[in-house]
């Protein structure tokens, strides 16, 4: 950019020299110039005599030079004599993991040490205290040290996870904030049980960051997640998996399932793997609320006992409209035409208007139809997972013509524009060539069965099942019913502490001084010179326009 401006200035000077400035002169003897040849030379003349070195020209040149200087200094900053006072922001971790006994005491001790250090500096100081977990909220701002300790002591952990990105957002906000108060934050101190993330090592911004990972790592076991397992295309059977993790200890505990009344229904022993993780499966008899607890409690309680809820029924309800009922009987599907989870119809039947997944089944894999090669297919479609296309091309598939698709869109098309597989999104609908083949051709059996159950799975996956539980949020931070605090990583009470920076770094003598950009000074000077030039050109008389 500087080079561009230099070129522009050089061009301006060249223009001054090459294009003579015809200064106007009014004289009484003008009529005697009629016979003088006109100044119409075409040659380029680079003579300084053509340059109108008027006062105005020099002022304008000074304006350009100031702008160029501003460009050259755009990245330069000068250290200003910053305030010698101490501006401190203390962010205290108040997430669920801080409920481990001793953690908040460690926070209090660290804060006391911080205040002791500040008072020893005998400098003016102002502190802001905030509490963070999934967000960061100020508890007290611009406070004197005396008020800080009581405020920190009053902080109670909340059943929420920890989002360390709020610290980065805080630093970004403080570095760009225009000073509107007397408390200028020069240091941010984070008090947490979390180890300092890697980006803290590379941080060299303003304000300075001190990460104090406090507290004592302690072993614990906890539930990390609960989910439905099994079923899927065949309908959820009611089985759940409870995942556990051990932190600095084996998760080999008993996991108990209790019903809504608290009666013990089942108990399973968790078998840990090499990573100190375990999984326990339970078969829920039906819908309702269940409580899952560990047989042993430890320092961190939010992951030792959780409540879930499920909706009955557990079996798949299907409105099967095909004459061949061998498949639904084999899968033990419940025939229900009033409130089905799935409707299965033939390609010649009318599509029901209800907002329910529909499986459209074509006329078997007819051998009377000539086989055809595949012309086009949607390579991203999950319906094609695991399919052998060579088998398909030999299968003589009797598909739909383009005109018969309706709102379906092709997924698999042959060279005769016959659609072998098609889907629609809303409501979910899939066309398959036929039911799983039961003849002698094993390849065709595998192909048709895979295709059928791919379609089934795709349709049933679009059912929205109620979650087994929800997590606490900043707006609803309390554990209540199926609102639990199973936030990822929060139960790891055995993390190795890692701090970056020391409290002793907080010192007005060595604190990083503020720096200010300097580019605006030459810009300001250029603006003043320009105003002066224009003023003198208007009111200063002709001597400001002539040599």
């Amino acid at each position: 950019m500087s080079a561009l401006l230099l070129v522009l200035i050089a061009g301006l000077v060249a223009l001054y020299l090459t294009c003579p400035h015809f200064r106007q002169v009014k004289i009484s003897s003008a009529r005697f110039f009629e016979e003088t040849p006109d100044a119409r030379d075409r040659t380029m003349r680079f003579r300084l005599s053509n340059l109108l070195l008027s006062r105005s020209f020099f002022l304008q040149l000074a304006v350009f030079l100031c702008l160029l200087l501003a460009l050259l200094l755009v990245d330069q900053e000068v250290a200003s004599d910053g305030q010698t006072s101490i501006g401190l922001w203390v962010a205290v971790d108040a997430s669920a993991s801080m409920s481990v006994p001793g953690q908040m005491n460690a926070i209090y001790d660290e804060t006391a040490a911080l205040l002791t250090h500040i008072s020893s500096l005998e400098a003016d100081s102002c502190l802001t205290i905030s509490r963070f977990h999934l967000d960061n909220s100020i508890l007290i701002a611009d406070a004197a040290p005396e008020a800080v300790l009581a405020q920190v002591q009053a902080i109670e952990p909340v059943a929420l996870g920890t989002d360390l990105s709020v610290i980065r957002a805080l630093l970004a906000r403080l570095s760009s904030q225009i000073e509107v108060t007397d408390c200028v934050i020069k240091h941010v101190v984070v008090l947490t049980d979390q180890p300092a993330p890697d980006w803290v090592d590379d941080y060299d911004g303003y304000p300075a960051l001190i990460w104090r990972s406090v507290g004592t790592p302690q072993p614990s076991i906890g539930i990390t997640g609960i989910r439905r397992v099994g079923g899927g295309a065949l309908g959820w059977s009611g089985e759940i998996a409870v995942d556990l993790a051990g932190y600095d200890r084996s998760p080999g505990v008993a996991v108990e399932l209790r019903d809504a009344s608290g009666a013990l229904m089942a108990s399973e022993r968790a078998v840990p793997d090499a990573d100190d993780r375990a999984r326990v499966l339970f078969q829920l008899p039906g819908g309702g609320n269940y409580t899952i607890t560990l047989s042993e409690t430890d320092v961190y309680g939010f992951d030792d006992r959780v409540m879930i809820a499920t909706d009955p029924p557990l079996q798949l309800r299907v409105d099967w409209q095909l004459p061949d009922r061998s498949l639904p009987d084999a899968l033990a599907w419940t025939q229900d035409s009033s409130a089905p989870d799935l409707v299965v119809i033939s390609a010649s039947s009318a599509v029901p208007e209800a907002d329910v997944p529909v499986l459209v089944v074509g006329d078997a894999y007819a051998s009377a139809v000539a086989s055809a090669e595949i012309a086009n297919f949607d390579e991203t479609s999950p319906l094609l997972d695991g399919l052998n296309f060579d088998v398909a091309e030999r299968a003589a598939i009797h598909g739909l013509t383009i005109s018969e698709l309706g709102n379906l869109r092709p997924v698999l098309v042959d060279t005769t524009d016959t659609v072998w597989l098609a889907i629609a999104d809303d409501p979910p609908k899939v066309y398959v060539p036929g039911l799983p083949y039961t003849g002698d051709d094993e390849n065709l059996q595998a192909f048709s069965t895979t295709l059928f159950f791919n379609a089934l799975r795709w349709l049933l996956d679009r059912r929205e099942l109620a979650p087994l539980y929800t997590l606490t949020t900043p707006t609803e931070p309390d554990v209540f019913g199926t609102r639990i605090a199973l936030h990822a990583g929060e139960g790891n009470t055995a993390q190795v502490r890692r701090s970056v920076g020391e409290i002793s770094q907080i010192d007005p003598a060595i604190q990083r001084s503020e720096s200010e950009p300097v580019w605006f000074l030459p810009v300001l000077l250029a603006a003043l010179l320009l105003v002066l030039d224009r003023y003198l050109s208007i009111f200063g008389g002709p001597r400001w326009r002539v040599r």
Partner: protein
Amino acid sequence: MFMPLPPMDDFLHQYRIQARRQIRRNLVGGHVTRRIGQSLEFRDYAPYYPGEDIRHVDWRATFRTHGGHAVHQSEKWLLRRYQSEERLQLLISLDLRETMHYPKQERRADPALLHSKAQIARWLSAALSSIAMEEGDMVVLHRLFGAELPPAEIRSRDQIDTVLDHLHSDELSEHFNQTQLESFLPPTAAWLIVTDFYFTEAAALIERVQSAPNWVIFVELDSWQAERAMLQTGARLVEGPFSAQKRVNVTDERMAEVEARIAERRRMVLESCPRADYTRWIWPTELLDDPIRFFRTQFAEDTVLQRLFMKDA
């Protein structure tokens, strides 16, 4: 727009006395001479100024008016003036075209045309009129070109600026104004033509000067040197009265050519009027810083104009 002649009675009186002390010699052509007639008729008294003929002091009138101690105070002497001195009729033709309104200097505190040839011409007219009227002569002012205004006689010194303002007009014509000129130009009148020679319609004027038996004096107000200094060198857009804008590369060579054209114009007029006297007031190369001083200097050093008030040999 113009500034009246500043008060300079002492200067003008000294000028008149100085001129009266000199003898006019080698005069060419018909002109009025100033004689002291044999039969002197008393006209009036006038204050005595140093240098005047002391024989004309009327001591009785002086003592009667100012007392006996006045003999030691020359400023109180009374001088007798006589009727029979022949009056000079002076016709001053002023070139008031637009070229005479140059050079122009833009100084906020000064009148717009204070530094122009027209201003000097006005002061010259006023000074000559004042001196002539002091001598008891008749003064007529005339606009040389443009509006067809008849000449106007000055009857008192207070009328000078009024008449000069009357002669100014916005008409741009360069036509020689001969309206009633004959009436105010008897053969014995002295005809003073104040111009810059930048006119084009010279034929009528030359013809009239050639045919006039009068004593004709051309006073040229030459501002070329000052305008040359304004041009300097380089690319210029030259503008002026009676000419279109012209882009010119000003060089010494080009300016020598222009100066030659001006000199040729001057030469043409003067050679056509061989019997006319000629004097030239040349502007300095710097724009006039003190126009009044310039006028006084030029006026005091101009020996041609002094002849108007000299005694005959």
